[in-house]
């Protein structure tokens, strides 16, 4: 077993053990913290498809994160109030069941990602970063000023949405739901990375001309990756809305997009468990420092700076050694 794989297993175990330990100690809040880690990690795993494998630095993934969140919020508010979400071609009252919400969150994120990706992928490099940002900003300003679902005030979810057969209101159960989804996304990532699709995607990141010259058009590969990536991030958004029982435009803000990127780099770009390591570290820093000092952002900054300067390849890079390669 390679060192990296051992570290990955360790991280997965660690994340699982936090809520169990919390339960044993009676510190329920740590379950929430661990759930948050899992959800942010899931969002970042989504982004990692585009960014880590495809080199598509999307500075607009908060759009999908937020869209997922709003799907959860809007569906459950309609289900709760028994008002139809739309009445043509059939009456639809939303849903307060997670599977339906997840599916919708992924589907809608993907559907919106498709045109955004198709336009954005005409550009490359920094232009791509900025055009994805532009789309996310459009959605952000739309959400702020659109009164129907609360605008900037956001939208509350009165009771956490359900999952058939289990009680999601129990923190540990909700954590487990998120954790399983995270593992599933990681498994998917690992499969895709090693597949033909993944090979083409990664080759496109390294040398687009080469990829085209062997007969694989980069555009379609990238568009597919961008869409998958958006769907997974959208799923994470739906989960976060359920965790907070609340969704607001701040989930759509550029700071959020930036934070997702930071999570990935912090953990190790392109690494399978990079997003997991990054999310765990970030949430932990934020929590511990926030409790210690009012100036926590200052110290968080110092720590992040230390990581970039002295820990090449992010946390996983330092622990597992050797930079990634195909």
């Amino acid at each position, binding site marked *: 077993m390679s060192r990296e794989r051992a570290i990955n297993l360790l991280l997965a175990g660690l994340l699982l053990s936090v809520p169990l330990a919390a339960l044993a100690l009676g510190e329920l809040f740590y379950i929430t913290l661990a759930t948050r880690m899992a959800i942010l990690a899931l969002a970042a795993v989504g982004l990692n498809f585009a960014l880590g494998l495809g080199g598509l630095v999307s500075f607009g993934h908060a759009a999908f994160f937020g869209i997922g969140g709003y799907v959860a919020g809007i569906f459950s508010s309609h289900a709760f109030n028994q008002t139809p979400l739309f009445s043509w071609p059939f009456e639809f009252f939303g849903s307060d069941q997670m599977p339906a919400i997840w599916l919708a969150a992924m589907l809608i994120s993907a559907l919106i990602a498709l045109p955004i990706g198709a336009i954005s992928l005409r550009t490359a490099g920094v232009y791509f970063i900025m055009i994805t940002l532009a789309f996310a900003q459009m959605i952000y300003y739309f959400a702020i000023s659109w009164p129907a679902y609360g605008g900037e005030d956001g939208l509350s979810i009165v009771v956490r949405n359900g999952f058939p057969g289990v009680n999601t209101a129990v923190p540990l159960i909700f954590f487990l739901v998120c954790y399983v989804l995270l593992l599933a996304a990681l498994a998917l990532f690992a499969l895709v990375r090693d*597949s033909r699709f993944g090979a*083409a995607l990664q*080759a496109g990141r390294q*040398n687009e*001309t*080469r990829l085209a010259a062997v007969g*694989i058009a980069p555009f379609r590969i990238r568009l*597919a990756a961008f869409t998958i990536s958006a769907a997974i991030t959208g799923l994470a958004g739906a989960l976060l809305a359920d965790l907070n029982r609340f969704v607001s435009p701040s989930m759509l803000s550029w700071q959020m997009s930036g934070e997702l990127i930071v999570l990935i780099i912090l953990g190790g770009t392109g690494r399978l468990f990079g997003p997991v390591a990054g999310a765990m570290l970030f949430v932990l820093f934020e929590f511990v420092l926030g409790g210690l000092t009012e100036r926590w952002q200052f110290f968080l900054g110092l720590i992040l700076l230390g990581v970039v300067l002295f820990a090449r390849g992010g946390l996983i890079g330092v622990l597992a050694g050797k930079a990634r*390669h195909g």
Partner: protein
Amino acid sequence: MAEPVLSIRDLRKSFGALKATDGVSLDLRPGEIHALIGPNGAGKTTLIHQIAGGITPDSGEVVFLGEDIGALGVAARARRGLGRSFQISSLAPEFSALRNVMLAVQSRQGSSFRFFRPVMKDRSLTEPAMAMLERTGLAARANVPAAELSHGERRQLEIAIALALGPRAFLLDEPMAGMGPEGSRALTAFLDGLRHEAPILLVEHDMDAVFALADRISVLVYGRVIATGTVDEVRGDAEVRRAYLGERP
């Protein structure tokens, strides 16, 4: 005479005031090596790019296997069977030599929208790729990332990738560059055999190789073909000697 595999009709391309391709027509027949020579900046690479699809010509047509491929993109042309090597090596630097070749094999086998099966465990990919590395003498370097190969080795890898596409015609832009005497000799012998798999349009400044290999030679100067003929005809052409060959001892 057999139908040409590739034929170019009156191709034109200008960059501003510069006519990089100025009414070029030439064809590539089955089984031949057609060398394209000419001074630096004559427009050879630009021509190859237009055939491969990277540059859109201003006018003229490119007919490949009886089909006008003028509207197709780079990738589509490659899938039709145009295999090319780059004048300045263009590889996926983080991938090993083997994975670089596997990419071509994968493309040749069809859709890349396969998400689950690991490529490294897929012998239908690894075996043909390894075979190509063996043919080009790079087998020992199969697992070295392309970025860590020496200049000459990268040139060899370019050839291996073009081969792996199993193309119907080769477009090789200065494959000999940087190969060294031994490498050039080996490559010359190799290309000599290759012409039977698919015809080669060969851009090359190494005259020893060109004279040893070419069935026909076209000479491009300032975007125009000033001469086409056999080795001896072209060698004897005073204009060609002046513009290109120089007074060789």
